[in-house]
């Protein structure tokens, strides 16, 4: 078996059977991170010493028949907003590039307990996009490319997590999403990305952009792998009061699914994205009932945007007051934090009050459906030198993003084809709160019937 581009599940079986060893896998992926990471700007820091220590431990345990589960001995990378003891955790921001923590983020600690091996801290948009960046060059490590084209953006803010998995530099990675930061790189890089339900994964030790919107989740080659990783990182954490006590166990459900497609799902989408989405619906119709649904008129975007603006203004208050934004990479991030300092308390609280109504509307619209289906993004990866909002100008609202993030709903994005210029497109399945298994089951079945997730960029094949 070639371990590069093998799924976590395949690697796990190979490790357990003795065909692959954690130490050799770690050396292989560290070598790939070192060789290819700079071409993509996808890596911030290699954690080689730690990785080899963890790999030797995993190898010893497996030899002694101590089994920690499917991630035992599997290398991975973490978005550089996750604290990792003794390693710089830069948040992608030049003024903070020497920031270090004396402890591991809970997600990193849980992965360590599951036997996974941290090989690298991966590139991200500075402060997870919290300053309002508009173009890809918004990280002190440079603009991150999708492995499918060096002149196109990886998406963000979990840029390096998406790009590194797509290039086969790590078998899986952890990213974070406040609004779009897992689904965007999953779309642009052609990988599977899972945004879990809010509170499913502890945020302890992760940079805060918006306390009530931030979620950590996996980016992998398959939806099935996303389930395996989510099981390892989820769970109640006394260090994060928002974590749920509902236990998560990954399992794939079978049977006929019922899917809803928003009436305006294809508004202002690029032609290639619309074409691929329509083709995907014909695949979905073979194992699911697909019906049109409609979200009623409601200020979805205003609710989520106001919460994000107010919480980000507070989370970065000291950073802003000290004038540190001037040291950021993107010119638009130099002034980005100032407008939101005047969000009024009455409007933030109104948004928090309307959030409950929004969550109930979503439940009503989605009642009887296993998932809502839509293109992951309206566009394929944008060219490096361009403002990404100018690639598809228009007035269409991002209702799926606003509702999904504002109401804390899970969603998985998987690749569903390519544009004429060879850039990946993605399809997302968004489900009810705590129903990750349902959306993953739909995605797993979709991937069982298609081969897009098995296509990899030529330049990175081993």
């Amino acid at each position, binding site marked *: 078996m070639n371990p590069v581009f093998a799924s976590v599940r395949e690697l796990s079986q190979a490790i357990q059977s003795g065909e692959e060893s954690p130490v050799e896998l770690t050396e292989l992926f560290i070598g790939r991170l070192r060789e290819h990471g700079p071409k993509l700007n996808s890596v911030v820091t290699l954690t080689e010493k730690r990785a080899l220590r963890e790999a030797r431990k995993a190898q010893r345990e497996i030899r002694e028949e101590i089994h920690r589960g499917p991630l035992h001995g599997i290398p991975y990378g973490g978005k550089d907003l996750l604290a990792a003891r003794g390693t710089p955790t830069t948040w992608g921001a030049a003024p903070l590039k020497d920031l270090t923590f004396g402890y591991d983020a809970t997600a990193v600690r849980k992965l360590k307990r599951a036997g996974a091996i941290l090989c690298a801290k991966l590139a991200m948009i500075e402060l997870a996009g919290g300053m*309002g960046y508009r173009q890809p060059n918004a990280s002190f490590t440079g603009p991150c490319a999708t492995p499918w084209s060096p002149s196109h953006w990886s998406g963000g803010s979990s840029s390096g997590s998406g790009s590194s998995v797509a290039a086969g530099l790590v078998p899986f990675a952890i990213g974070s999403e406040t609004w779009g930061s897992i689904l965007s790189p999953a779309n642009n890089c052609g990988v599977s990305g899972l945004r879990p339900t809010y509170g499913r994964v502890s945020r302890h030790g992760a940079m805060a952009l918006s306390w009530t919107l931030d979620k950590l989740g996996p980016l992998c080659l398959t939806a099935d792998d996303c389930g395996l990783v989510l099981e390892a990182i989820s769970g109640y954490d006394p260090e994060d009061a928002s974590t749920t006590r509902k236990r998560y166990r990954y399992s794939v459900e079978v049977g006929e699914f019922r899917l809803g497609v928003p009436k305006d799902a294809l508004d202002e989408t690029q032609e290639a994205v619309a074409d691929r989405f329509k083709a995907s619906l014909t695949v979905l119709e073979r194992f699911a009932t697909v019906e049109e649904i409609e979200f009623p008129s409601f*200020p979805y975007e205003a609710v989520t945007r106001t919460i994000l603006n107010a919480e980000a203004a507070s989370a970065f208050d000291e950073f802003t007051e000290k004038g540190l934004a001037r040291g950021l990479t993107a010119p638009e991030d130099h002034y980005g934090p100032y407008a939101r300092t005047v969000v009024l308390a009455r409007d933030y609280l109104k948004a928090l009050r*309307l959030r409950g109504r929004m969550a109930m509307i979503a439940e009503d619209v989605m009642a009887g459906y296993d998932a809502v289906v839509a293109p992951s993004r309206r566009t394929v990866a944008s060219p490096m030198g361009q403002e990404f909002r100018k690639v598809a100008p228009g007035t269409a609202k991002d209702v799926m993003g606003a509702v999904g993030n504002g109401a804390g709903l899970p969603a998985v994005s998987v690749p569903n084809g390519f544009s004429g210029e060879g850039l990946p497109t993605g399809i997302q399945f968004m489900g009810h709160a705590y129903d990750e298994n349902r959306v993953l089951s739909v995605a797993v079945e979709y991937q069982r019937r298609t081969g897009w997730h098995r296509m990899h960029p030529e330049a990175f094949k081993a």
Partner: protein
Amino acid sequence: MDSKSVEAETLFKLVEQLYGGRLSEAELEEVKKGVERIVEASMELRAVELGNWDEPFSVFTPYRRQVK
């Protein structure tokens, strides 16, 4: 000027007072557009009527240190 413009202009003046010294004219113009977008969103929120009993969708939990 309508009430939206008055509010946006007033809030922008506050930002300008507090942070104008750090920002160029061009940057201040961008900040002004940002304030206008924030006020636009606020107007959308205020247009939805809620009852007195409609609470924020988050729960405050009083803290008590666990004594062993």
